[in-house]
């Protein structure tokens, strides 16, 4: 008799405990600090944007958002780590969409780009462009194209790395316009810009707008979807008929399987953070464009972007098949 009451008690207690511990909605999320990986080095626009976003979000969530740098592999190292973390909403990552729909095409990554993550919120679009030295003889994009046509094999442009959208766009343009211009990759945007300032290359294809906004470089062509408000006179790739633009967005991810209630709370927090001062200041300094894509919309965006990117890279003969399966 006592044995069965004892066991019943045990079972009940165990069940109750399991329920308590396993149901995240039971505890009012968030009850402890949230860790957000920044997948690029400090000082850059992604890292700084993650900190500004976090600073705003923590006011809404009531718990600190701690940004931890986990850089490497163009963002893939941080994402790999995130893929294996618990989907309890306390570990997130601020990363670029490249880590999902671009890099995995070129090389095998350990996570499933469209399967391993909860795509929570896309918050900014970093503008990128083709730029030349401020005192260069090329005043418009057409000037540069003409020059390249007349001097095949002579025109060189630098970039922060091969396979980035900035590089790929130039490759696409080269193909379409049938011009032979040379790509010189550097380990980062600072050395790439130094190269153009020093006259070692003719142009730089970059995602860092600082020098353009400060006047040291002149933007000839924007890779943004629409005209960039701070440089309204510079044409975009879409306008000029090149069917390619830099669709990279900064966004927050979590491991796959986060409770939808938690996701909603995070979406709200991030959306509100975009209205706050730390964010506004950041947009000013880095020249970012705010974006607001909540989870469902962003997931659709990534699916379409994946398909589009596969096609483009196949047409450029960069890949035969994606190196990583999406799911």
């Amino acid at each position, binding site marked *: 008799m006592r044995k069965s009451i004892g066991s019943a008690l045990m079972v009940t207690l165990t069940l109750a405990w399991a329920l308590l511990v396993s149901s995240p909605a039971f505890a009012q999320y968030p009850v402890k600090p949230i860790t957000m990986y920044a997948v690029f080095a400090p000082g850059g626009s992604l890292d700084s944007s993650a900190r500004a976003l976090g600073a705003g979000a923590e006011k809404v969530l009531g718990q600190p958002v701690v940004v931890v740098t986990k850089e490497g592999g163009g963002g893939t190292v941080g994402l790999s780590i995130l893929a294996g973390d618990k989907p309890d909403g306390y570990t997130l990552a601020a990363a670029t969409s490249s880590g999902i729909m671009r890099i995995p095409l070129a090389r095998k990554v350990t996570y499933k780009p469209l399967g391993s993550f909860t795509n929570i919120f896309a918050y900014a679009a970093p503008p990128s462009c083709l730029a030349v030295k401020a005192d260069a003889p090329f005043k418009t994009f057409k000037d540069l194209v003409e020059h390249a046509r007349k001097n095949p094999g002579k025109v060189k442009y630098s970039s922060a790395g091969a396979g980035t959208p900035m590089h790929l766009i130039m490759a696409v343009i080269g193909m379409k316009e049938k011009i032979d211009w040379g790509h010189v990759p550097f380990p980062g945007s600072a050395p790439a810009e130094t*190269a153009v300032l020093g006259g070692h290359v003719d142009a730089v294809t970059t995602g860092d707008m600082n020098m353009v906004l400060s006047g040291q470089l002149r933007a000839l062509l924007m890779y943004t979807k629409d005209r960039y408000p701070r440089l309204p006179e510079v044409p975009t790739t879409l306008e000029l008929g090149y069917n390619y633009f830099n669709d990279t967005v900064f966004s927050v991810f979590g491991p796959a399987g986060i409770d939808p209630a938690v996701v909603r709370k995070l979406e709200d927090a991030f959306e509100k953070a975009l209205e706050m001062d730390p964010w506004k200041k950041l947009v000013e300094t880095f020249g970012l464009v705010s974006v607001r894509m909540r989870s469902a919309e962003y997931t659709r965006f990534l699916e379409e972007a994946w398909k589009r990117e596969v096609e483009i890279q196949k047409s450029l003969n960069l890949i035969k098949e994606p190196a990583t399966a999406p799911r």
Partner: protein
Amino acid sequence: MDFWSNITLGFSVIIDPTNMLFCFIGVFLGTLIGVLPGLGPGATISLLLPLTYRLDPISSIIMVAGIYYGAKYGGSTTSILLNIPGEPDTVITCLDGYQMARQGRAGPALGISAFGSFIAGTFATLGLMLVAPPLAEFALRFGPPEIFALMVLALNLIAFMSSGSQIKGLAMATLGLFLGSIGLDIFHNVDRFVFGYNFLLEGLGIVPVILGLFGVAEILSNLEVEIKGKIFQKRAPNLLPSLKDWKDSFWPIIRGTVVGFFVGLMPGGGGIASTFASYSIEKRVSKHPEKFGKGAIEGVAGPESANNACSGANFIPLMTLGVPTNGIMAIIFASLLINGLQPGPLLIKNNPNLFWGVIASMYLGNAMLLILNLPLIGMWVRFLTIPYTVLAPMILFFCLLGSYTLKNSVADLVVMLIFGILGFLMRKFRYEAAPLIMGFIISEMVEGSFIRSLLMSNGSFTIFFTRPISCVLMIVALVLFILPFFGRKPKVLGSSDDEK
């Protein structure tokens, strides 16, 4: 604005008590971080980033600058005392500094290091004030072919910096060059030697490698001998450099300052390149090169000065051109931006307060560091008398902590352990770690500048000789290489009987 009004402006900014306080906090924190192996100024500064958003820009830049060169001062301390570079830049100081410490001359080593750094830092700041913009422009002219030529020169010098067998030194340098290529090839987006280990994508971490090669290996080596007492037997009566020390160090400090300053100007010109260049130069011009590696004070005075001059010069491209030459400058760049300041040619014009204030703070910072560090020398020397049985676990712990906390990655600990074993074996078989580290660090620049030059020239090798600066450097490298074969003492690829 002329020279004097600039200085006055700068000092008026720095006299402000808040700024002085932040300068002090910066150098103090920096020294602390420098002393702790593994914890680098980069990590700290990025941790302090949120704070910098709330401070006013001048104060925060002053503090960050203080941390930066404070770390260099602190890093030399552990290099000299423990043969563990507190910062990767201070690897070279281990070579002779530690030997001096073992000979009971830790005080003079620390002293000359502090003074040399102070002098170098002051001169560098002077240089910054006088010639910043034109120098920065000159540095811009160093493109890939010039960098490659410099690398050839560097590789040349590596051969001569070994105190033991040169062939072994060269072999280690080559191994280092190879190890640096592990990771992602940025030119072709291909993994190299990664074998599926994700953490290797960014390459081997320099910190775990150094902590393993110098820290863990040192401890394992010391454990071998029954250490119950202290490993530093003699305690020198002098805590400060003697007159002879000053005489010996005079020219090395001057040369080191000049070399460090120029290396620091260039993109990619890091502290370690400057120390390494200075060491090699000192060894080459010395009348008794065989003393290097055994406690020659020139081997400390030169590189230490070079390191500090380099830190000062690192600010130049950032402040005048808006180009950060290394990761920490990039962080400072970001904090300038966040505060609404645009680093670049306009910075001096639009924000003279900031520019000259930061420069003045460098003088102040260097002075503060000297005042801070000199009395500490006594303390550090006493620290060495702690029984090794207590010291060893602490040092080991710092190595573990330093390697792990970089990226919160256990993989880095594994790297540290592997290189610890390697370092231990290297000591047994008489191979030196310094050339390996050198090769490792310049690896990307060697390969990268070579490939980039070829991309620029469409595959033609003549680019290295058609460009004036590059041509000159290549010729110098060639001459330096051939020289020993014709010199008085044909120091040809030495064999093991060069060893003690």
